[in-house]
Structure formats: C-alpha cells, structure tokens
C-alpha cells in the first residue's frame, strides 16, 4: 500500500518522488512524513507504544583533557545541551540517553568523543536503518551537561533541543534548529542561531561583534556591550535593552523591534522592519543624524530634533517640501551634534524615538 500525501506549501511543492531505494519492505513512501498517526499506523510493532512506555535512560560520562586554549565542540541531534565552566584543564561530559520506546533503541545511539591535540569533539550519532529516516529524531534524545575550563572555545549544535552556555570566555558559537539558545556571560560570542525558538543573551561584554538570529521566535539581548551587534528574525520580536554598541544592524520581517540603550558618538545604527513597530528608547544619546523612512507607518520622535539639519540638504524648505510632496512617512533630522547615524526603515510599522 503506497501512501502518497503531498504536502502543499505556498511556493514550495513537496512532491512524492520515487524512492531511490527499491525496498520491498517499504509499505509507505518514507520520505513523506505527515505525523505520528500515519507513522505508527504504517509501521506496526516497531514503535508501538512509543509514547506510552516508561522512560528508559542510559548514562554516559567521560572526562577528557583539553588545553586552556582548547576548542570544544558538541553536535547533538535531539536533546538539550547545558555548558558551564569549572576550573582545571579537562572537559567533563555527562549525558543521559532517553527514550519512551524500547530500551534497545538506546544502544543504537552513539556518543562519540574525538580527542585530538587541543580539540575535543563530541557527537551524537544514530545508527539507522533506511526505513527509520523519517522518525529518527522522534524517540531517542540525549541531554548533555558539560563543564569546560572557562578559557576554552565552544561550538554547540543541536537539531531539536535547547542550547545553554554560561561563563565560557573563549569564542562561542551556538545553534539549534528547534529550540532556544540561552547564553550568559559569554564575552566572545560570535553567533547564536535558531530556526524555531528564542535567543536570549545576557551579561555579555565584548570588544568584538556578535550575531544572533532566529526564523521564528524571539531575540532578546539584555545587558550587552559590544562593538557591533547584528540581529535578524523573520517572525517574532527583537528586544534589546541595557545595550551599548557602536554599530547595530537589525532586520525583522514580522515582529516588533525595541532598542533600549545608548547611541555612541559617530556610531552607526540601522534597523529594518517590515510590519513591526520600531521603538528606540535612548539613554543619554550622543548626537545623531536620523534617516527614518516608512511606506505607510508613522514616524514620531519625543526627542527634540532639528528637521533637515543635515548639511547635505540644500535648505530646510527643500526638505520639508519633499516630505510633503511624497508622503508624510519620512524624516531626516538631527539631534545634537549629529555625529552618529540612525537609519530606520519600515514598510508599514511605526517608528518611535523616545528618551529613556
């Protein structure tokens, strides 16, 4: 019995392509996966009671030496990762494999630890039958708790699970596909990413640049001091508070953006939102030149601004004339000495600039 149930996406058509492997044991096209119901009904026995059984666990524990400047990486599939720091010069890895299915499933999940000079790489790997492809992520998870020396660099990846790191002072990259990324006191954060989930960054002070992105969820940064900050999201809010940076790049499609922080002298701040409201709550800002544009959103400032104060405008009246003639949705203005640059663009969202 061949089941073909095409999932139709807007703009993407998922079509049941003939399976490359001609395997007679297939009684469904395993590449089309619609949900638990179909899977369990078409594969009798193997995953019966998958969600009903008691939780089976297996523990894993390893300590590996790593230099103070070592690099640690962890690639997980399903399950959470928590990284904290401790003294010494070794990495301490504790993992718990979990399943509600059969205990034998646990043995098919391997935790491999690859230990080379100055590097420790840990991976979760599933032995898998071709037939399992659609379901491998759904019934065994591995939760990791790792302690590293504070000066080590870490690279953390999960597919379905959250990633959390605190106090790592080497460079940090953390990403997951479905899950949250929570990072605290990671001064050399380079990138924090998720597809479906929240990113929360707190207590970070760095001389460098940091990047965070999500597709669907939220991005929050609190108590962050960096040279450059880049934040991008498709749907969800971006909320940045108690932040100091010299350069900001924010991009959002559907979701609000709020920046509560300072404007540094001669800094450059760019915010681009399609439909969300952009709110800037500025604490003792340095002077800036504002270039705000929206197609249909309104622009409002509670700070005293000099309209058309930029020297490139031929005269104040020209600027005003241009604004009235086109629409009332653009503002070029100067605050203070106009040393920094604020570029805020939305399509339909409102732009609000206020003092905190």
């Amino acid at each position, binding site marked *: 019995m061949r089941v073909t149930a095409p999932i139709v996406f807007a703009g993407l058509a998922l079509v049941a392509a003939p399976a490359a492997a001609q395997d007679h044991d297939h009684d469904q096209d395993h590449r089309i996966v619609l949900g638990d119901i179909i899977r369990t009904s078409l594969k009798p026995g193997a995953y019966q009671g998958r969600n009903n059984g008691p939780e089976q666990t297996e523990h894993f524990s390893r300590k590996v030496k790593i230099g103070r400047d070592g690099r640690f990486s962890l690639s997980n599939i399903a399950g959470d990762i928590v990284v904290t720091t401790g003294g010494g010069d070794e990495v301490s890895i504790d993992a718990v494999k979990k399943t509600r299915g059969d205990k034998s499933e646990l043995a098919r999940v391997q935790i491999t630890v690859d230990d080379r000079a100055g590097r420790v790489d840990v991976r979760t790997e599933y032995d898998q039958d071709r037939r399992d492809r659609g379901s491998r992520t759904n019934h065994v998870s591995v939760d990791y708790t790792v302690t590293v020396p504070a000066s080590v660099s870490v690279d953390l990846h999960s597919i379905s699970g959250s990633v959390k790191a605190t106090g790592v002072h080497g460079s940090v990259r953390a990403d997951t596909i479905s899950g949250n990324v929570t990072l605290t006191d990671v001064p050399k954060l380079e990138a924090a990413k998720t597809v479906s989930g929240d990113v929360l960054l707190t207590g970070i002070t760095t001389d460098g640049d940091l990047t965070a992105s999500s597709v669907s969820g939220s991005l929050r940064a609190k108590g962050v001091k960096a040279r450059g900050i880049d934040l991008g999201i498709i749907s969800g809010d971006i909320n940045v508070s108690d932040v100091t940076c010299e350069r900001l790049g924010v991009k959002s499609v559907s979701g609000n953006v709020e920046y509560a922080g300072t404007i540094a002298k*001669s800094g*450059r701040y760019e915010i681009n939102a399609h439909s969300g409201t952009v709110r800037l709550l500025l604490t003792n800002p340095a002077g800036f030149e504002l270039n705000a544009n929206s197609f249909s959103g309104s622009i409002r400032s509670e700070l005293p601004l000099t309209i058309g104060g930029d*020297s*490139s405008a031929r005269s104040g009246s020209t600027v005003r004339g241009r604004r009235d003639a086109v629409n009332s949705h653009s503002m070029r203005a100067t605050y203070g*000495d*106009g*040393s920094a*640059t604020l570029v805020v663009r939305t399509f339909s969202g409102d732009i609000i600039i206020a003092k905190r």
Partner: protein
Amino acid sequence: MDLVARCQAGDVEAFETLYRQHSARIYTLACRMAGSAEDGEDLLQEIFLQAYRKVGSFKGQSALGTWLYRLALNHCLDYVRSRQAKMNKLTDTIDAETSFEPAARRETPIARLDLERAMERLPEGCREAFVLHDVEGFDHKEVAELLGIAEGTSKSQVFKARLKLRAYLTKR
C-alpha cells in the same frame, strides 16, 4: 606554502584561515570602493567565493595575500564599472560645495569615522580614484590604468574628491 596547498586541495579550514588573515583588508577595500558597508559585504562574499574557485590557478609568483588583493581589486573595479554603465553615468548634481575657496577653519583633526562616512557620500568616479590614490596608495599612473582613464583625469578626480571631502567635513 602549506596553507596554499591545502586551500588548493579544497580544505575549507585552511580557506577559513586565509579568510581570517585577509578579510579585513579586502572588506575595507570593498566598502570604500562600493561606497557602503552593505555592498562591501556582498562584494566580500563574491570575492572570497571567486578566490575559492580560482585558488587552483595560483602559481606562487607572488604572495597569496597579494594575489587575493589583486583579485579583490579587479572585482571591485568590475563592479563599479558595471554599476556606472547601468546608471548611464549620472551627471554630478550642481554642487555649491565644490568651491575652490578655502573652507572655514576646522578646529578638530579629521576623525576616522567622519572621513569614512564622508567618503561614502562622494559621487561615483571621484570616489574610486580617491580610494585608490589617497587611501590605497597607488600613484596616478596606476590609478589611471586601473580605472581605464587618462592620468590627468585621475589627478582631477582625486582633487575633486578632496575638495568635496573638505567641504563635507567642515560643515560639522
């Protein structure tokens, strides 16, 4: 050199090392030639991708960094040229700022960021000449070759750029 061999073999880690060593230089050049950080970033991407594809043909007659810089420069020039062709070369807007009179005295020395931002405002044509001559340090003969213009034109473009910059910077 080991790094070269590894890059030529397609070793991505080695290529990352190459990137780390040279990206700032290339990015800076790209931003200034293109006139914005956004365009500079796109150019940076294209340049290194091209470098990845072409590293096989690097023969070691110069340092790898020099080869990379040359590739970047060619790419930036090509980009600028195609953009100018697309735009049908806008004539300069009448600019009262390009006066030959000395501008008002400036109290503070030119701040780095102010100059960078002022450079982004330079019109096409004179910006590239300025970047290549005053920033990158090519002489007028080389600038002329790179941009496909006469040496005298290079001089007058650089001069025009300097005057405009002076005007932008003293308005603050």
